[in-house]
């Protein structure tokens, strides 16, 4: 376990290739407990790949990644332990369509953490309250709207009581009228002190919630700054150009 001063996530000189393609180049990033980090950057810049390395959905080839005191290497048990401490929310929800909402939330606690089914259900219902859809517990994911599905996915990622939450463009696949309900849930989590790394282009959310903005381009972290400075006085030319495009004039 980490002491408060130590970062809960540490990436040091991380390099990764897809075949000959150098997708992550000397990526170094520290995230403190309770810190809220928003990552942005152009498409293909390696944002997804970077956060997927943190729970080893992708394997890095150079450098070190340490999560909650555990270095990610070949040890399967260590990797599974890290995954239990790190929740992840995907752009495409990835709920299990053959299980009910409640079963989606109790699967990991019962099967991975060995929680008694009754207790797992109680925790799951509390989480569904928190994402404001307890009445959908008995339904199947296919019966819910996109926004509701993503809120269930957030609840599912929380069901093992993770120390860190990773979000990969959680609102990009949503109809515009549903973006707000998901961002609200995420803001709620942030307010409760959850450590979060969020890849998103929702700049309003970023400005309101982030402690740290990270800008990536072509596999490198180009700029790291608090939101006020990042949005109003970006240091890097590429950041300026990107913000100009995305915020629009």
């Amino acid at each position, binding site marked *: 376990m980490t002491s408060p001063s130590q970062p809960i996530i540490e990436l040091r000189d991380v390099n990764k290739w897809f075949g000959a393609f150098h997708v992550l180049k000397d990526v170094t990033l520290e995230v403190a407990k309770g810190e809220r980090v928003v990552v942005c950057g152009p498409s293909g810049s390696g944002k997804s790949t970077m956060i997927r390395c943190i729970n080893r959905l992708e394997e890095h080839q150079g450098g070190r990644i340490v999560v909650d005191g555990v270095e990610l290497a070949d040890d399967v048990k260590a990797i599974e332990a890290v995954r239990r401490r790190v929740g992840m929310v*995907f752009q495409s929800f990835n709920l299990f*369509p053959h299980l009910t909402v409640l079963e989606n939330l109790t*699967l990991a606690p019962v*099967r991975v953490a060995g929680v008694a089914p009754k207790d797992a259900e109680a925790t799951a219902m509390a989480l569904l309250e928190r994402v404001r859809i307890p009445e959908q517990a008995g339904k199947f994911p296919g019966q819910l709207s996109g926004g509701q599905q993503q809120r269930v*996915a957030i609840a599912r*990622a929380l069901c*093992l009581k993770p120390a860190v939450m990773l979000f990969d463009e959680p609102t990009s696949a949503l109809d515009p009228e549903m973006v707000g309900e998901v961002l609200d849930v995420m803001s709620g989590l942030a307010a409760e002190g959850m450590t979060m790394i969020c890849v998103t282009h929702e700049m309003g959310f970023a400005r309101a919630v982030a402690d740290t903005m990270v800008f990536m381009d072509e596999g490198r972290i180009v700029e790291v700054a608090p939101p006020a400075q990042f949005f109003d006085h970006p240091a890097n030319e590429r950041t300026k150009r990107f913000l100009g495009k995305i915020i629009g004039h």
Partner: protein
Amino acid sequence: MAAAPAGFWSSTRFRGVLYQVMVVAAVVALGGWLVHNTLVNLEIRGIATGFGFLAREAGFGISESWISYSPADSYARALVVGLLNTMVVSAIGIVLATVLGTVVGVARLSGNWLVGKLATLYVEALRNVPLLLQLFVWYGVLTALPGARQALHPLPGIFLSNRGLVIPSLDWSQGWLPAMEIPRLVGFNFIGGLTLSPEFAALLAGLTIYTAAFIAEIVRAGILAVPKGQTEAALSLGLSRGQILRLVVLPQALRVIIPPLTSQYLNIAKNSPLAIAIGYPDLVAVSNTAINQTGQAVEGVALVMAVFLGLSLTLSALMNWYNKRVALVTR
């Protein structure tokens, strides 16, 4: 909307009906001609039609049976013996082929290079050699085994010799719980347990191993049809590879797997008459003997066809029902 006479003749609705009437008329005419022709020929050869022969004494022996049978029993009983033999070998074949096919299908997707290649080799070799040849091979292997006294003894209670396969059986006579009866070799014979003849074992092995190659491909395709995001979501929750396969991927793959799996199950039943080549008394083998003795070929074949149709439709209906049950619920 009164159509002019010319318009009526060229209307698609009229034409559609006309074509259907023509097809039905042609089928009826062909069927009528066949029936008439058959009846005339049977009369010329002096064969009485009808199923009366079923009650007569069969007069031939059957090498293995799940119910008591002697040559003094009726043809009907002989056919039931054959039907049971067909059903037993098909049912066990279906279960074993499903298990083996799933294992091989999963193995083909294994990250382990050697395991993957071996599974590919299995599939390619076995589904590209005619089943009949494979049956000859298994039968040859099984009958070339050593005698009972030198029987192979791979696992406790299991003996493999030229007498066939001897396995432990369950004894239900002792009350509520069955007792396991372990076979023992006494002198030249096995006492206790269940003896499966070399013919039965060869047919079962052939049907299972051949069909498993097809099922493996079906399972593989089914697994590949499950979106990668499902595995990633499960991984991110800390589930192990085995758990992900069991709890997340296979249940969803079932939707894709079941329809083609049904036709493989039907194939097992429909391939079982190849038994005749190695002398296993299945329904077709028994009915063949009956037909040779009575000359009632039309009735005998019709009966066997009706039974196979009935078996197949029942199996299809079961699988359709199961498929509906595992279908995903959506809006």
